[in-house]
């Protein structure tokens, strides 16, 4: 699995960190998404999918 984020689309909702805190963080100043791990280990792939589904700005793409 490969995770891709689009910082321009991001609206800082924090839904990615809520669902997959090991894979995503937010910039301190404006909450924009920071991708920590772009190839999640197998025990994190479900969280990655949840984060992508929960992102209100559709800023997370998952390539299986």
């Amino acid at each position: 699995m490969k995770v891709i984020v689009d910082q321009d689309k991001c609206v800082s909702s924090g839904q990615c960190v809520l669902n997959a805190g090991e894979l995503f963080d937010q910039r301190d100043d404006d909450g924009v998404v920071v991708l920590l791990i772009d190839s999640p280990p197998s025990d994190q792939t479900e969280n990655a999918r949840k984060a992508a589904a929960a992102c209100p700005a559709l800023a997370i793409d998952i390539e299986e």
Partner: protein
Amino acid sequence: MSDTLTGTTTEVPDYPMDRDARCPFAPPPQVLEMGEAKPLSRVRIWDGSTPWLITGHAVARELFADPRVSVDDRIDGFPHWNEHMLSTVHKRPRSVFTSDAEEHTRFRRMLSKPFTFKRVEGLRSAIQEVTDECIDAILAGPQPADIVTKLALPVPTRVISEMLGVPYEDHEFFQHHANVGLARYATAEDGQKGAMSLAQYLINLVETKMADPSEDAVSDLAERVNAGEISVKEAAQLGTGLLIAGHETTANMIGIGVLALLENPEQAALLRDSDDPKFIANAAEELMRYLSIIQNGQRRVAIEDIEIGGETIRAGEGIILDLAPANWDAAAYPKPDQLDLTRDAGQQLGFGYGRHQCVGQQLARAELQIVFHTLLKRIPTLRLAVPLDEVPFKHDRLAYGVYELPVTW
């Protein structure tokens, strides 16, 4: 104009609809019936126009995320809440609520710093402390006690005041004006009074913080005014949004949420007996789904033709995304009329969805999780002190809830 030609004009129902007083937690029955038939249909609003009402969960999610759907309330066809909102449309500075695309992103990012997931996690101990103090005061005070004034209002108000740098001593003033500003059927005149004095209050506060900043969100906005990024009026408008949304909505959710738990004692027991943060978090989501307190519909206008759910929304037509029926869509949540804290309530639409989804959602989540769980744990014998049909509900507010909630234990 096909409505007129086919003679169906009279069949377009008026919106908003009334709830059934016997089912105070349920969305209006007529809205649910419309949702069972189709995910979107026409309604008639106060000015006689007939925007689309979105009642289906999947269609709502899609439209919330669709860039062809605008929140710009200056566009012809935008379905305003009431006369007050229409009459002030060109006077109100643009804000995070009424701007699209890049302009929206710019405003949004100015507001996001205090609400990141990790920053809110760092506030949990402070929220817990405020909650415990409020419950201490309830237990030490007379019975019955009003949950609204003793718990639901003070917890989020103290937390947001601290975050924004708004003096808590002023809470009666801004709580009052926030309440006036959220009148559902406001006339141009009475809406104006509340909005004006609150705006002036925030302008004064921004100016104070421009000269003498501290570590808070209004100071951050004031700094951007000093840097020439936004005007004082824009900063005040953004601050007003945070202040109102930051206490009024959460307070309503706490008040009516406690009532829903008291009316569903077996569900309350599950929450009381759990120490699993994931269960407690999901319980708050399920209460958000079940109650969907933002009851007047999220207002939008189409800027291009959109094919969806077997219909075509034309450019320039109004769109009302109604959270309550979407959250009671049986295709998304089987037996939606049951409060079931064990169901997966992820993807509930209580905070909206799309790029305008609630800025303060992580803060609201933390507050709801802490308040519901702590209250049930600390006062396990809590019960309603009046019959349910004597509880005054906020049918006339943009945010649904209860005016007061007398409890005993």
